[in-house]
């Protein structure tokens, strides 16, 4: 057992154990795909939250709504609600875009360091395998 290799492998294993749920999983996606998935999630969740809040506000003012329903212009009311929905959605999409872009870039930087360390370990192991082959006289297949 090669202690030098072990010293290199332990931090890599530690990184995989800690970061596996975060950076490594994020970097399995392309940047555009990761951001698109987050934006899609935000779209559905924000729509659900908007409908819930709207339902709650309507339920809380149901008497007033029923009393004044004749004086409402449905087109005007619909446009106001739609514009409000678009504004809220736009705000959350922008926030999600910024946060997911930053998360991806941070994950990519972290994983890049891990990948370079991994390549270094691979080279070390190939080199030590080559030295072992020389000693044993075994030919390596190229």
């Amino acid at each position, binding site marked *: 057992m090669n202690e030098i290799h072990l010293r290199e492998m332990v931090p890599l*294993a530690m990184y995989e154990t800690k970061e596996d749920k975060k950076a490594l999983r994020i970097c399995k996606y392309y940047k555009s795909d990761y951001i698109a998935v987050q934006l899609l999630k935000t779209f559905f969740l924000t729509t659900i939250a908007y409908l819930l809040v709207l339902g709650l506000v309507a*339920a809380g003012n149901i008497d007033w709504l029923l009393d004044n329903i004749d004086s409402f212009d449905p087109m005007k009311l619909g446009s106001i609600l739609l514009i409000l929905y678009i504004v809220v959605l736009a705000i959350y999409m922008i926030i999600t875009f910024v946060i997911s872009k930053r998360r991806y870039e941070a994950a990519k930087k972290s994983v890049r360091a891990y990948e370079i360390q991994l390549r270094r370990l691979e080279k070390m192991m190939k080199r030590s395998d080559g030295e072992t082959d020389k000693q044993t006289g075994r030919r390596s297949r190229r």
Partner: protein
Amino acid sequence: MTGFAKLDQTLRAYYGRHSTFVDMAGKFILAMISFFWIRSVLNYQPVFSNPVLLLLLALLATVFPSTMIPVFSCILVVGQASAVGIDAAVVAAVFMLVLVILFLRFVAEDAVAFSLVPVAIFFGFSALVPLFCGLKRKLSSVLAVACGTVLYYFMAALSREGSAIQQLPLSSFDKRLSLLIGGTFTSTCFINVIAMIAVVVVVHAIRALGISHGHLVAVPVGGIVYLMFIVLGNAVLGTSFAIPTVLIGTVASCIAVYLLILIMLPLDYAKTERLEFEDDDYYYYVKAVPKVAVTQRASKGGESEEEPVEKPDLTDVDFEKKLEDSLRNL
């Protein structure tokens, strides 16, 4: 400071070896505080007030990630609200869902703050959690703190208006809803949320300046900012905060935060890591126990002082360049 440094070293060494049990005990204590406090404030539903159920939930929370503590807290609040009325339970459920969907999903790592803020406000330590989050967490923790504040006022409204809501018939659910929602979103709630956000932002900004002993400056400044907003709220919006009580609570919060930072802070302690991996020849089962590094320097008086080594800030280090250099040297 030597005594505190030695105590800090002892705690770090102990935590490094027994981190699993310490983390589980910490989660259990936090869960118990949170769940039994909900029971003391909202004692409507006997099922959800049963101590055995709360103990079981706390044990479950110990095993699961700490994000389950606020989830169980929300379930308990909705369960208690169901005794007031089905509409109150629906409002509570919708309220929690909206908070989670719109705010808390961006700060899942600070979900415990969401559970602890209402408890701290109830016991008069309103500034405790925002001071701590400003010092030790990211700026995004402001969302968890704000949501926790709103949750406190929702629970206060449910507790205060619960009997009045139960007396109203179910058919007048708009009046019942108005009592609950109107009782939550008051000027007091608004001022407290703004004050909490301001504390987190200011404390975080002072910490980000990177001045030495910045936390010693940030904590009292954060306390003063909180008091300022409370006094402004009383003057401008006519809120009725009891200033002497708030003053005492803020001072106590500052002292508690100092104690947490100086003595009892395992959050940035290194843990024992247990790893399993393999190569072509061996399976490896590795237990990595962190070392506690102490630097010594001689003081002018001739006695050596111990100073804990701070973790270097690695955010601006170009790992790629460093490792490529090492590959070339290989």
